[in-house]
Protein backbone atom coordinates (compact mmCIF):
# COMPACT_ATOMS: atom_id res chain seq x y z
CA UNK A 1 0.00 0.00 0.00
CA UNK A 2 1.15 3.50 -0.71
CA UNK A 3 1.50 5.82 2.23
CA UNK A 4 -0.06 9.20 1.67
CA UNK A 5 0.61 12.37 3.61
CA UNK A 6 -2.29 14.68 4.38
CA UNK A 7 -1.94 18.21 5.72
CA UNK A 8 -4.80 20.02 7.41
CA UNK A 9 -4.16 23.73 7.83
CA UNK A 10 -5.99 25.86 10.41
CA UNK A 11 -6.22 29.58 11.07
CA UNK A 12 -6.96 29.48 14.78
CA UNK A 13 -5.51 27.53 17.70
CA UNK A 14 -8.88 26.85 19.37
CA UNK A 15 -10.26 25.36 16.16
CA UNK A 16 -7.09 23.31 15.86
CA UNK A 17 -7.38 22.06 19.42
CA UNK A 18 -11.00 20.97 18.93
CA UNK A 19 -10.11 19.30 15.68
CA UNK A 20 -7.27 17.38 17.30
CA UNK A 21 -9.62 16.18 20.02
CA UNK A 22 -12.21 15.14 17.45
CA UNK A 23 -9.63 13.28 15.36
CA UNK A 24 -8.20 11.53 18.43
CA UNK A 25 -11.67 10.40 19.48
CA UNK A 26 -12.04 8.79 16.02
CA UNK A 27 -8.83 6.81 16.63
CA UNK A 28 -6.88 8.33 13.76
CA UNK A 29 -3.13 8.66 14.28
CA UNK A 30 -1.69 12.14 14.00
CA UNK A 31 1.92 12.17 12.89
CA UNK A 32 2.82 15.69 13.94
CA UNK A 33 1.32 19.11 14.61
CA UNK A 34 3.16 22.28 13.65
CA UNK A 35 2.25 25.58 15.34
CA UNK A 36 3.88 29.01 15.35
CA UNK A 37 3.71 29.17 19.17
CA UNK A 38 3.07 26.70 22.01
CA UNK A 39 -0.65 25.91 22.23
CA UNK A 40 -1.82 25.23 25.76
CA UNK A 41 -3.44 21.85 26.18
CA UNK A 42 -2.24 20.53 22.82
CA UNK A 43 0.22 18.12 24.43
CA UNK A 44 -2.60 16.67 26.53
CA UNK A 45 -4.94 16.42 23.56
CA UNK A 46 -2.27 14.63 21.52
CA UNK A 47 -1.56 12.30 24.43
CA UNK A 48 2.15 13.11 24.44
CA UNK A 49 4.29 11.72 27.22
CA UNK A 50 5.30 14.24 29.86
CA UNK A 51 8.69 15.72 29.18
CA UNK A 52 11.63 14.53 31.25
CA UNK A 53 13.46 17.80 30.65
CA UNK A 54 12.83 18.90 34.26
CA UNK A 55 14.59 15.81 35.62
CA UNK A 56 17.47 16.43 33.22
CA UNK A 57 17.68 20.03 34.44
CA UNK A 58 17.86 18.86 38.05
CA UNK A 59 20.63 16.39 37.23
CA UNK A 60 22.58 19.05 35.32
CA UNK A 61 22.20 21.47 38.22
CA UNK A 62 23.54 18.86 40.65
CA UNK A 63 26.42 18.23 38.26
CA UNK A 64 27.16 21.95 38.13
CA UNK A 65 27.18 22.47 41.88
CA UNK A 66 29.38 19.40 42.39
CA UNK A 67 31.80 20.56 39.71
CA UNK A 68 32.00 24.07 41.16
CA UNK A 69 32.47 22.76 44.70
CA UNK A 70 35.30 20.44 43.71
CA UNK A 71 36.89 23.06 41.50
CA UNK A 72 36.92 25.78 44.12
CA UNK A 73 38.02 23.30 46.79
CA UNK A 74 40.95 22.34 44.64
CA UNK A 75 41.84 25.91 43.73
CA UNK A 76 41.35 27.73 47.01
CA UNK A 77 42.03 25.06 49.66
CA UNK A 78 44.34 22.34 48.30
CA UNK A 79 46.37 23.86 45.52
CA UNK A 80 46.94 27.47 46.47
CA UNK A 81 45.37 28.71 49.72
CA UNK A 82 45.21 32.48 49.63
CA UNK A 83 44.72 34.87 52.48
CA UNK A 84 42.00 37.20 51.23
CA UNK A 85 40.94 39.70 53.87
CA UNK A 86 41.87 37.27 56.64
CA UNK A 87 39.19 34.79 55.66
CA UNK A 88 39.77 31.20 56.83
CA UNK A 89 41.51 29.40 53.98
CA UNK A 90 42.49 25.99 55.32
CA UNK A 91 39.07 24.39 55.51
CA UNK A 92 36.31 24.33 52.99
CA UNK A 93 33.34 24.65 55.32
CA UNK A 94 34.67 27.69 57.16
CA UNK A 95 35.02 29.59 53.93
CA UNK A 96 31.91 28.28 52.21
CA UNK A 97 29.92 31.58 52.12
CA UNK A 98 32.49 33.09 49.78
CA UNK A 99 32.25 30.06 47.51
CA UNK A 100 28.47 30.14 47.26
CA UNK A 101 28.33 32.66 44.37
CA UNK A 102 30.67 30.47 42.29
CA UNK A 103 28.66 27.35 43.03
CA UNK A 104 25.38 29.14 42.32
CA UNK A 105 26.58 30.47 38.99
CA UNK A 106 28.00 27.11 37.93
CA UNK A 107 24.67 25.44 38.77
CA UNK A 108 22.85 27.90 36.54
CA UNK A 109 25.48 27.67 33.79
CA UNK A 110 25.45 23.89 33.67
CA UNK A 111 21.67 23.60 33.88
CA UNK A 112 21.06 26.21 31.18
CA UNK A 113 23.71 25.16 28.67
CA UNK A 114 23.30 21.42 29.01
CA UNK A 115 19.52 21.80 28.76
CA UNK A 116 19.87 23.75 25.51
CA UNK A 117 22.24 21.15 24.13
CA UNK A 118 19.92 18.31 25.20
CA UNK A 119 17.01 20.07 23.55
CA UNK A 120 18.90 20.55 20.30
CA UNK A 121 20.02 16.91 20.24
CA UNK A 122 16.52 15.63 21.02
CA UNK A 123 15.07 17.74 18.21
CA UNK A 124 17.80 16.68 15.80
CA UNK A 125 18.93 20.24 15.25
CA UNK A 126 22.58 19.66 14.34
CA UNK A 127 24.53 22.19 12.31
CA UNK A 128 23.36 21.94 8.73
CA UNK A 129 20.14 20.14 9.67
CA UNK A 130 17.36 20.43 7.09
CA UNK A 131 14.03 21.89 8.08
CA UNK A 132 11.33 19.25 8.51
CA UNK A 133 8.58 21.80 8.43
CA UNK A 134 6.18 20.91 5.60
CA UNK A 135 4.79 24.42 5.21
CA UNK A 136 6.70 27.61 6.05
CA UNK A 137 3.43 29.40 6.88
CA UNK A 138 3.33 27.51 10.20
CA UNK A 139 6.14 29.74 11.37
CA UNK A 140 3.88 32.74 10.77
CA UNK A 141 0.15 32.43 11.45
CA UNK A 142 -1.03 28.97 10.34
CA UNK A 143 -1.44 25.73 12.25
CA UNK A 144 -0.86 22.39 10.58
CA UNK A 145 -1.78 18.78 11.36
CA UNK A 146 0.20 16.13 9.52
CA UNK A 147 -1.15 12.63 8.86
CA UNK A 148 0.41 9.59 7.29
CA UNK A 149 -2.31 7.32 5.99
CA UNK A 150 -2.44 3.98 4.30
CA UNK A 151 -5.41 3.54 1.97
CA UNK A 152 -8.29 5.94 1.67
CA UNK A 153 -7.76 9.51 2.85
CA UNK A 154 -11.43 10.43 2.52
CA UNK A 155 -12.33 9.91 6.18
CA UNK A 156 -9.55 12.17 7.39
CA UNK A 157 -10.32 14.86 4.84
CA UNK A 158 -14.01 14.84 5.73
CA UNK A 159 -13.18 15.10 9.39
CA UNK A 160 -10.77 17.97 8.77
CA UNK A 161 -13.22 19.99 6.73
CA UNK A 162 -15.98 19.27 9.24
CA UNK A 163 -13.88 20.58 12.14
CA UNK A 164 -12.98 23.79 10.33
CA UNK A 165 -9.71 23.33 8.45
CA UNK A 166 -9.12 26.23 6.10
CA UNK A 167 -7.07 24.19 3.62
CA UNK A 168 -6.48 20.47 3.05
CA UNK A 169 -3.54 19.24 0.99
CA UNK A 170 -2.48 15.77 0.01
CA UNK A 171 0.92 14.60 -1.11
Amino acid sequence: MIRKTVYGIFDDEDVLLNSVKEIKSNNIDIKEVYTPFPVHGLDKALGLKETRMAIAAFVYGCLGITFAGLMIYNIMIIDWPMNIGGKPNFTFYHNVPSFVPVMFECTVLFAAHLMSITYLIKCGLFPGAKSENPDPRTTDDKFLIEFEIEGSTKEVKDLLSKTGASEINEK
Partner: protein
Amino acid sequence: MFTITKNARNLSFGLMIIGVTALILGFVNDAHSAWPSLLFNTYFFLGISVFAVFFIALQYVAEASWSIVLKRVPEAIISFLPISGIIMLIIMVTAVMHFGGNHIYHWMADGIMDKFLLDDLGNQILDEKGNPILNPGYDKIIAGKAAFLDTTFFLIRSVIYILGWVYFGRKLKQLSLNEDKHGGLENYNKGFRTSAWFMVFFAITSSIASWDWIMSIDTHWFSTLFGWYVFSEWAVIGFVSILLITLYLKRLGYLESVNESHIHDLGKYVFAFSLVWTYMWFSQFMLIWYSNIPEEVAYFTARLEVENYKFLFWFRVAINFLFPIILLMSRDAKRNNSRLIFVCIVILIGHWLNSYLLVTPGVLNKEGHIGFTEIGMGLGFFGLFIYVVFNALTKAPLETKNHPFLDESKHLHT
Protein backbone atom coordinates in the same frame (compact mmCIF):
# COMPACT_ATOMS: atom_id res chain seq x y z
CA MET B 1 -21.53 33.13 50.55
CA PHE B 2 -18.99 31.96 53.07
CA THR B 3 -19.99 31.27 56.65
CA ILE B 4 -17.44 30.81 59.40
CA THR B 5 -17.45 27.32 60.85
CA LYS B 6 -17.94 26.97 64.57
CA ASN B 7 -14.50 25.42 64.97
CA ALA B 8 -12.79 28.33 63.24
CA ARG B 9 -14.68 30.85 65.36
CA ASN B 10 -13.89 29.02 68.60
CA LEU B 11 -10.26 28.62 67.56
CA SER B 12 -9.92 32.33 66.80
CA PHE B 13 -11.48 33.30 70.13
CA GLY B 14 -9.29 30.82 72.00
CA LEU B 15 -6.17 32.18 70.31
CA MET B 16 -7.24 35.76 71.03
CA ILE B 17 -7.67 34.92 74.71
CA ILE B 18 -4.15 33.46 74.75
CA GLY B 19 -2.94 36.60 73.02
CA VAL B 20 -4.58 38.97 75.47
CA THR B 21 -3.22 36.92 78.39
CA ALA B 22 0.26 37.04 76.90
CA LEU B 23 -0.09 40.77 76.31
CA ILE B 24 -1.19 41.52 79.87
CA LEU B 25 1.30 39.15 81.52
CA GLY B 26 4.07 40.41 79.29
CA PHE B 27 3.48 44.06 80.08
CA VAL B 28 2.93 43.48 83.80
CA ASN B 29 6.03 41.31 84.21
CA ASP B 30 8.51 42.95 81.88
CA ALA B 31 7.32 45.79 79.68
CA HIS B 32 10.79 46.30 78.25
CA SER B 33 10.76 42.91 76.54
CA ALA B 34 7.03 42.95 75.77
CA TRP B 35 7.30 45.96 73.42
CA PRO B 36 9.71 44.37 70.92
CA SER B 37 7.55 41.26 70.98
CA LEU B 38 4.50 43.35 70.12
CA LEU B 39 6.45 45.18 67.43
CA PHE B 40 7.68 42.12 65.57
CA ASN B 41 4.30 40.42 65.67
CA THR B 42 2.62 43.57 64.37
CA TYR B 43 5.26 43.90 61.69
CA PHE B 44 4.70 40.29 60.64
CA PHE B 45 0.92 40.56 60.28
CA LEU B 46 1.06 44.07 58.84
CA GLY B 47 3.35 42.64 56.19
CA ILE B 48 0.83 39.94 55.31
CA SER B 49 -2.03 42.41 55.02
CA VAL B 50 -0.19 45.10 53.07
CA PHE B 51 1.12 42.48 50.71
CA ALA B 52 -2.47 41.56 49.86
CA VAL B 53 -2.90 45.11 48.50
CA PHE B 54 0.31 44.70 46.55
CA PHE B 55 -0.89 41.37 45.17
CA ILE B 56 -4.12 42.88 43.82
CA ALA B 57 -2.29 45.88 42.39
CA LEU B 58 0.24 43.56 40.76
CA GLN B 59 -2.53 41.61 39.03
CA TYR B 60 -4.01 44.86 37.70
CA VAL B 61 -0.82 46.40 36.36
CA ALA B 62 0.37 43.12 34.87
CA GLU B 63 -3.11 42.62 33.35
CA ALA B 64 -2.94 39.13 34.79
CA SER B 65 -5.99 36.98 34.37
CA TRP B 66 -5.18 33.80 36.26
CA SER B 67 -5.86 35.15 39.77
CA ILE B 68 -9.32 36.66 39.19
CA VAL B 69 -11.27 33.70 40.57
CA LEU B 70 -9.45 33.88 43.90
CA LYS B 71 -9.21 37.65 44.28
CA ARG B 72 -11.72 37.72 47.16
CA VAL B 73 -9.04 36.10 49.34
CA PRO B 74 -6.47 38.95 49.17
CA GLU B 75 -9.37 41.42 49.34
CA ALA B 76 -10.41 39.86 52.64
CA ILE B 77 -6.84 39.95 53.95
CA ILE B 78 -6.78 43.72 53.30
CA SER B 79 -9.38 44.17 56.04
CA PHE B 80 -6.70 43.33 58.60
CA LEU B 81 -4.57 46.24 57.40
CA PRO B 82 -6.29 49.03 59.38
CA ILE B 83 -6.07 47.01 62.60
CA SER B 84 -2.42 46.09 62.31
CA GLY B 85 -1.71 49.63 61.10
CA ILE B 86 -3.32 51.18 64.17
CA ILE B 87 -1.37 48.85 66.47
CA MET B 88 1.81 49.83 64.62
CA LEU B 89 1.02 53.52 65.08
CA ILE B 90 0.32 52.98 68.78
CA ILE B 91 3.75 51.37 69.13
CA MET B 92 5.39 54.27 67.29
CA VAL B 93 3.61 56.99 69.33
CA THR B 94 4.40 55.28 72.63
CA ALA B 95 8.00 54.82 71.51
CA VAL B 96 8.34 58.54 70.83
CA MET B 97 6.69 59.38 74.18
CA HIS B 98 8.59 56.61 76.03
CA PHE B 99 5.18 55.64 77.36
CA GLY B 100 4.82 52.38 79.26
CA GLY B 101 8.49 51.48 79.17
CA ASN B 102 8.66 51.55 75.38
CA HIS B 103 12.39 51.89 74.66
CA ILE B 104 12.50 50.04 71.38
CA TYR B 105 14.36 52.75 69.50
CA HIS B 106 17.74 53.60 70.91
CA TRP B 107 17.98 56.81 68.89
CA MET B 108 14.89 58.25 70.62
CA ALA B 109 16.70 58.35 73.96
CA ASP B 110 16.73 61.83 75.47
CA GLY B 111 19.75 63.92 74.62
CA ILE B 112 21.52 61.24 72.63
CA MET B 113 22.00 63.67 69.75
CA ASP B 114 23.16 66.63 71.92
CA LYS B 115 26.90 67.11 72.00
CA PHE B 116 26.77 69.25 75.15
CA LEU B 117 24.63 68.94 78.24
CA LEU B 118 21.44 71.02 78.08
CA ASP B 119 19.13 72.25 80.80
CA ASP B 120 15.35 71.95 80.71
CA LEU B 121 14.97 75.04 78.57
CA GLY B 122 17.42 73.77 75.97
CA ASN B 123 20.28 76.09 76.92
CA GLN B 124 23.80 74.77 77.28
CA ILE B 125 24.95 74.14 80.85
CA LEU B 126 28.28 75.86 81.42
CA ASP B 127 31.01 74.82 83.83
CA GLU B 128 32.73 77.33 86.16
CA LYS B 129 35.08 78.49 83.39
CA GLY B 130 32.14 79.22 81.09
CA ASN B 131 32.71 76.30 78.72
CA PRO B 132 29.91 73.93 77.70
CA ILE B 133 30.09 70.46 79.30
CA LEU B 134 30.38 67.42 76.96
CA ASN B 135 27.39 65.12 77.15
CA PRO B 136 28.56 61.62 78.21
CA GLY B 137 25.52 60.05 76.49
CA TYR B 138 26.27 61.76 73.16
CA ASP B 139 26.39 59.42 70.17
CA LYS B 140 28.15 60.94 67.20
CA ILE B 141 26.89 58.42 64.62
CA ILE B 142 23.27 58.81 65.66
CA ALA B 143 23.62 62.60 65.74
CA GLY B 144 24.80 62.39 62.13
CA LYS B 145 21.45 60.85 61.21
CA ALA B 146 19.44 63.52 63.05
CA ALA B 147 17.90 64.93 59.87
CA PHE B 148 16.15 61.68 59.07
CA LEU B 149 15.68 60.24 62.55
CA ASP B 150 13.63 63.12 63.88
CA THR B 151 10.71 62.01 66.05
CA THR B 152 8.12 64.35 64.49
CA PHE B 153 9.18 63.53 60.95
CA PHE B 154 9.27 59.85 61.93
CA LEU B 155 5.67 59.90 63.18
CA ILE B 156 4.44 61.83 60.13
CA ARG B 157 6.09 59.24 57.89
CA SER B 158 4.53 56.34 59.78
CA VAL B 159 1.08 57.91 59.50
CA ILE B 160 1.56 58.49 55.76
CA TYR B 161 2.49 54.84 55.13
CA ILE B 162 -0.44 53.44 57.06
CA LEU B 163 -3.01 55.91 55.72
CA GLY B 164 -1.77 55.49 52.17
CA TRP B 165 -1.83 51.72 52.27
CA VAL B 166 -5.27 51.63 53.88
CA TYR B 167 -6.58 54.15 51.33
CA PHE B 168 -5.32 52.17 48.33
CA GLY B 169 -6.42 48.85 49.85
CA ARG B 170 -9.95 50.07 50.48
CA LYS B 171 -10.20 51.71 47.09
CA LEU B 172 -9.13 48.59 45.20
CA LYS B 173 -11.51 46.48 47.25
CA GLN B 174 -14.38 48.90 46.64
CA LEU B 175 -13.73 48.96 42.89
CA SER B 176 -13.83 45.19 42.81
CA LEU B 177 -17.16 45.10 44.68
CA ASN B 178 -18.61 47.80 42.41
CA GLU B 179 -17.59 45.73 39.43
CA ASP B 180 -19.63 42.83 40.77
CA LYS B 181 -22.69 45.06 41.06
CA HIS B 182 -22.55 47.15 37.90
CA GLY B 183 -20.25 45.43 35.43
CA GLY B 184 -18.63 47.31 32.59
CA LEU B 185 -15.04 48.27 32.12
CA GLU B 186 -15.06 51.50 34.11
CA ASN B 187 -14.14 49.91 37.43
CA TYR B 188 -11.44 47.82 35.85
CA ASN B 189 -9.82 50.84 34.22
CA LYS B 190 -9.99 52.78 37.46
CA GLY B 191 -8.45 49.83 39.28
CA PHE B 192 -5.64 49.76 36.76
CA ARG B 193 -4.80 53.44 37.31
CA THR B 194 -5.11 53.16 41.09
CA SER B 195 -2.81 50.15 41.08
CA ALA B 196 -0.20 51.94 39.02
CA TRP B 197 -0.15 54.77 41.54
CA PHE B 198 -0.04 52.31 44.40
CA MET B 199 3.00 50.61 42.87
CA VAL B 200 4.90 53.88 42.89
CA PHE B 201 3.73 54.71 46.40
CA PHE B 202 4.50 51.24 47.74
CA ALA B 203 7.92 51.06 46.13
CA ILE B 204 8.97 54.13 48.10
CA THR B 205 7.04 53.60 51.32
CA SER B 206 7.75 49.91 51.83
CA SER B 207 11.48 50.64 51.71
CA ILE B 208 11.36 53.65 54.00
CA ALA B 209 8.95 51.93 56.38
CA SER B 210 11.38 49.06 56.78
CA TRP B 211 14.20 51.51 57.58
CA ASP B 212 12.02 53.38 60.04
CA TRP B 213 10.41 50.56 61.90
CA ILE B 214 13.03 47.84 61.74
CA MET B 215 16.44 49.04 60.58
CA SER B 216 16.52 52.07 62.90
CA ILE B 217 16.44 49.71 65.89
CA ASP B 218 20.09 48.91 65.17
CA THR B 219 20.72 52.58 64.61
CA HIS B 220 24.44 52.45 63.93
CA TRP B 221 24.10 49.81 61.29
CA PHE B 222 22.65 50.15 57.84
CA SER B 223 22.15 47.96 54.82
CA THR B 224 21.28 49.28 51.40
CA LEU B 225 19.18 46.27 50.43
CA PHE B 226 17.21 46.17 53.66
CA GLY B 227 14.04 47.42 51.96
CA TRP B 228 14.14 44.60 49.42
CA TYR B 229 14.93 42.10 52.13
CA VAL B 230 11.86 43.12 54.11
CA PHE B 231 9.74 43.25 50.95
CA SER B 232 10.80 39.74 49.96
CA GLU B 233 9.81 38.51 53.39
CA TRP B 234 6.41 40.19 53.10
CA ALA B 235 6.03 38.59 49.69
CA VAL B 236 6.69 35.11 51.06
CA ILE B 237 4.32 35.39 54.01
CA GLY B 238 1.74 37.19 51.86
CA PHE B 239 1.66 34.47 49.22
CA VAL B 240 1.69 31.76 51.90
CA SER B 241 -1.35 33.33 53.57
CA ILE B 242 -3.27 33.69 50.31
CA LEU B 243 -2.44 30.10 49.42
CA LEU B 244 -3.39 28.67 52.82
CA ILE B 245 -6.73 30.54 52.94
CA THR B 246 -7.54 29.51 49.37
CA LEU B 247 -6.81 25.87 50.17
CA TYR B 248 -8.90 26.11 53.35
CA LEU B 249 -11.85 27.55 51.42
CA LYS B 250 -11.51 24.89 48.75
CA ARG B 251 -11.47 22.17 51.37
CA LEU B 252 -14.75 23.51 52.72
CA GLY B 253 -16.21 23.37 49.22
CA TYR B 254 -16.07 27.04 48.25
CA LEU B 255 -14.23 28.63 45.33
CA GLU B 256 -15.26 25.96 42.84
CA SER B 257 -13.66 27.74 39.90
CA VAL B 258 -10.25 27.59 41.53
CA ASN B 259 -8.58 24.59 39.98
CA GLU B 260 -5.23 22.83 40.37
CA SER B 261 -3.52 25.31 38.08
CA HIS B 262 -4.35 28.29 40.30
CA ILE B 263 -2.96 26.45 43.30
CA HIS B 264 0.07 25.52 41.22
CA ASP B 265 0.63 29.18 40.31
CA LEU B 266 0.43 30.29 43.93
CA GLY B 267 2.81 27.47 44.81
CA LYS B 268 5.25 28.77 42.22
CA TYR B 269 5.11 32.20 43.81
CA VAL B 270 5.79 30.76 47.27
CA PHE B 271 8.71 28.77 45.88
CA ALA B 272 10.15 31.66 43.89
CA PHE B 273 9.88 34.26 46.63
CA SER B 274 11.38 31.89 49.20
CA LEU B 275 14.42 31.80 46.95
CA VAL B 276 14.33 35.60 46.53
CA TRP B 277 14.30 35.95 50.30
CA THR B 278 17.25 33.58 50.65
CA TYR B 279 19.07 35.46 47.92
CA MET B 280 18.51 38.77 49.69
CA TRP B 281 19.48 37.35 53.05
CA PHE B 282 22.62 35.80 51.67
CA SER B 283 23.62 38.89 49.69
CA GLN B 284 23.34 40.95 52.84
CA PHE B 285 25.12 38.41 55.02
CA MET B 286 27.91 37.40 52.68
CA LEU B 287 29.11 40.91 51.83
CA ILE B 288 29.18 41.94 55.46
CA TRP B 289 30.83 38.68 56.56
CA TYR B 290 33.42 38.98 53.82
CA SER B 291 34.37 42.61 54.29
CA ASN B 292 34.35 42.24 58.09
CA ILE B 293 34.12 45.99 58.74
CA PRO B 294 33.43 46.53 62.46
CA GLU B 295 30.48 48.92 62.14
CA GLU B 296 28.74 46.62 59.67
CA VAL B 297 29.55 43.27 61.19
CA ALA B 298 28.28 44.38 64.60
CA TYR B 299 24.77 43.57 63.37
CA PHE B 300 25.68 39.93 62.87
CA THR B 301 27.84 39.53 65.94
CA ALA B 302 24.86 40.73 67.99
CA ARG B 303 23.02 37.70 66.63
CA LEU B 304 25.70 35.11 66.01
CA GLU B 305 27.81 35.51 69.14
CA VAL B 306 24.85 35.39 71.50
CA GLU B 307 23.79 31.99 72.75
CA ASN B 308 20.05 32.82 72.59
CA TYR B 309 20.04 33.68 68.90
CA LYS B 310 22.87 31.59 67.48
CA PHE B 311 20.78 28.50 66.82
CA LEU B 312 17.75 30.43 65.56
CA PHE B 313 19.94 32.45 63.22
CA TRP B 314 20.98 29.39 61.19
CA PHE B 315 17.80 27.46 61.84
CA ARG B 316 15.50 30.05 60.24
CA VAL B 317 17.69 30.35 57.16
CA ALA B 318 17.83 26.59 56.85
CA ILE B 319 14.10 26.00 57.04
CA ASN B 320 13.15 29.03 54.95
CA PHE B 321 15.47 27.87 52.19
CA LEU B 322 15.64 24.08 52.35
CA PHE B 323 11.97 23.24 52.84
CA PRO B 324 10.71 25.12 49.79
CA ILE B 325 13.61 24.18 47.53
CA ILE B 326 13.59 20.48 48.35
CA LEU B 327 9.89 19.87 48.83
CA LEU B 328 8.36 22.32 46.34
CA MET B 329 10.73 22.08 43.39
CA SER B 330 8.85 19.64 41.20
CA ARG B 331 5.62 20.37 39.37
CA ASP B 332 3.71 17.59 41.09
CA ALA B 333 4.70 18.89 44.52
CA LYS B 334 3.03 22.24 43.83
CA ARG B 335 -0.16 20.40 42.94
CA ASN B 336 -0.05 18.26 46.08
CA ASN B 337 -2.19 20.12 48.61
CA SER B 338 -1.00 18.40 51.78
CA ARG B 339 2.64 18.97 50.89
CA LEU B 340 1.93 22.62 50.07
CA ILE B 341 0.18 23.11 53.40
CA PHE B 342 3.07 21.47 55.27
CA VAL B 343 5.74 23.60 53.58
CA CYS B 344 3.65 26.78 53.93
CA ILE B 345 3.24 26.29 57.67
CA VAL B 346 6.94 25.57 58.09
CA ILE B 347 8.04 28.70 56.26
CA LEU B 348 5.40 30.78 57.99
CA ILE B 349 7.02 29.78 61.29
CA GLY B 350 10.45 30.33 59.77
CA HIS B 351 9.60 33.87 58.76
CA TRP B 352 8.00 34.55 62.11
CA LEU B 353 11.36 33.58 63.65
CA ASN B 354 13.06 35.83 61.13
CA SER B 355 11.00 38.84 62.15
CA TYR B 356 11.81 38.00 65.77
CA LEU B 357 15.50 38.11 64.89
CA LEU B 358 15.09 41.41 63.04
CA VAL B 359 13.71 43.19 66.09
CA THR B 360 14.59 41.58 69.39
CA PRO B 361 18.41 41.35 69.42
CA GLY B 362 18.67 45.06 68.67
CA VAL B 363 16.42 46.02 71.57
CA LEU B 364 17.15 43.46 74.28
CA ASN B 365 20.76 42.59 73.37
CA LYS B 366 21.59 39.36 75.18
CA GLU B 367 18.41 39.07 77.25
CA GLY B 368 15.97 38.23 74.49
CA HIS B 369 14.44 34.77 74.37
CA ILE B 370 11.34 33.23 72.87
CA GLY B 371 8.91 32.66 75.70
CA PHE B 372 5.21 32.79 76.39
CA THR B 373 5.04 36.54 75.66
CA GLU B 374 6.37 36.15 72.12
CA ILE B 375 4.52 32.98 71.17
CA GLY B 376 1.31 34.01 72.97
CA MET B 377 1.21 37.37 71.19
CA GLY B 378 1.90 35.66 67.89
CA LEU B 379 -0.99 33.25 68.48
CA GLY B 380 -3.21 36.13 69.58
CA PHE B 381 -2.45 38.06 66.42
CA PHE B 382 -3.09 34.92 64.41
CA GLY B 383 -6.49 34.47 66.10
CA LEU B 384 -7.41 38.09 65.47
CA PHE B 385 -6.21 37.77 61.89
CA ILE B 386 -8.35 34.75 61.06
CA TYR B 387 -11.34 36.26 62.86
CA VAL B 388 -11.15 39.53 60.91
CA VAL B 389 -10.28 37.94 57.57
CA PHE B 390 -12.94 35.25 57.76
CA ASN B 391 -15.50 37.85 58.77
CA ALA B 392 -14.52 39.90 55.75
CA LEU B 393 -14.91 36.80 53.58
CA THR B 394 -18.54 36.44 54.68
CA LYS B 395 -19.36 40.00 53.57
CA ALA B 396 -18.91 39.52 49.82
CA PRO B 397 -19.77 36.61 47.52
CA LEU B 398 -16.70 34.48 46.99
CA GLU B 399 -17.41 34.00 43.32
CA THR B 400 -16.54 37.17 41.44
CA LYS B 401 -18.64 38.48 38.56
CA ASN B 402 -18.17 40.84 35.61
CA HIS B 403 -14.40 41.03 35.64
CA PRO B 404 -13.21 41.27 32.03
CA PHE B 405 -10.71 38.44 32.52
CA LEU B 406 -12.98 36.21 34.60
CA ASP B 407 -13.67 33.69 31.88
CA GLU B 408 -10.01 33.40 31.03
CA SER B 409 -9.21 32.81 34.68
CA LYS B 410 -11.77 30.03 34.94
CA HIS B 411 -10.15 28.20 32.05
CA LEU B 412 -6.63 28.46 33.34
CA HIS B 413 -4.55 25.39 32.65
CA THR B 414 -0.79 25.21 32.87
